[in-house]
């Protein structure tokens, strides 16, 4: 909308010749500091900003904790309580409470970076850059493998994850490769791709609708369609908030499931 206003105010404004749908190039951001492959771009600054926001939220909320919480403390407490009761206790049981700080930070980091996609003046979901979900997935991969090895020993962990009990011996020729691929390769891959693809899809759809609005408002005949496009785009912003919460929740709960599965294999 801002670009529309700016272009309307400029004197030599001409309607565009043809509609060019936005593609994946909207995810490429130029270097801000430094140059080459290892420079700081917009996305890095947003990630640093998200860390500052999360730390500030927790510090402000719990600096002077009251017995009867109110305001921000109330909100933050209910989120942490939801992760404790809805994810950790439900999936891992009381023995998983030592992972609560990790899962809480994971949830908040993913949620804040997702919600950047619709925050005015930022409007870029950091998690749509594949590197960030990929890093989070590798982190989770190490944590659930190390937790499994610590709980059962290396041999026990490999045995319980590659040779599920209750299967006829010959079937292991078929089952073991499948279990290996699904446990050690597909799990982190799907974790990362799920988060990144959801954010890419959401950002792309929002961009297409608002670019479409901008394109359709040039002629009087197409202004009703521009209004429709704008209305649907606005509705999709609300949908994106839902997706941001849901993806943070799903990433956290899957992490909990993987850690619980490698610590306590099903018998």
């Amino acid at each position, binding site marked *: 909308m801002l670009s529309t206003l700016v272009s309307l105010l400029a004197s030599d404004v001409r309607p565009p010749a043809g509609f060019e749908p936005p593609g994946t190039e909207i995810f490429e951001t130029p270097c801000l500091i430094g140059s080459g492959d290892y420079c700081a771009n917009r996305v890095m600054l947003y990630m640093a900003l998200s860390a500052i926001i999360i730390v500030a939220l927790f510090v402000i909320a719990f600096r002077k904790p009251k017995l009867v919480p109110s305001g921000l403390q109330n909100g933050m407490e209910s989120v942490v309580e939801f992760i404790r009761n809805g994810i950790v206790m439900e999936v891992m049981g009381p023995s998983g409470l030592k992972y609560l700080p990790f899962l809480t930070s994971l949830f908040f980091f993913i949620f804040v970076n997702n919600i950047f996609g619709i925050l005015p003046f930022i409007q870029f979901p950091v998690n749509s850059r594949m590197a960030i979900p990929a890093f989070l997935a590798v982190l989770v991969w190490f944590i659930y493998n190390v937790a499994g090895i610590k709980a059962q020993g290396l041999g026990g962990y490999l045995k319980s994850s590659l040779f599920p009990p209750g299967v006829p011996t010959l079937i292991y020729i078929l089952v073991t490769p499948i279990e290996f691929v699904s446990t050690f390769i597909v799990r982190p891959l*799907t974790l990362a791709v*799920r988060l990144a*693809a959801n954010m890419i899809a959401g950002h792309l759809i929002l961009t297409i609708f608002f670019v479409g609005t901008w394109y359709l408002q040039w002629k009087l005949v197409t202004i009703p369609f521009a209004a429709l496009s704008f209305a649907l785009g606005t509705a999709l912003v609300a949908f994106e908030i839902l997706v941001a919460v849901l993806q943070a929740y*799903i990433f956290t709960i899957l992490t909990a499931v993987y850690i619980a599965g490698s610590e306590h294999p099903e018998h």
Partner: protein
Amino acid sequence: MGLLGLLAAVEGDVGAIGKGLVYGLAAIGPGIGIGFLVGKAVEAMARQPEAAGMVRTTMFLGIAFVEALALFGFVLSFII
């Protein structure tokens, strides 16, 4: 001419059609899957409302697994 004939005709530039086909075909299975999954979960919640929390958690887990396939199709449509 049919779809195959159409595909043969655009042999030189299959980009857009190929991308559309990849995502469209990848969305069929997960669409059916999520439909079944949520339907059965609602059935279970209606039968045993006291187990609704557990059913909902499991439902989201299942949706996450099923949805991954459609998202792979989405990502592949950009890669090809």
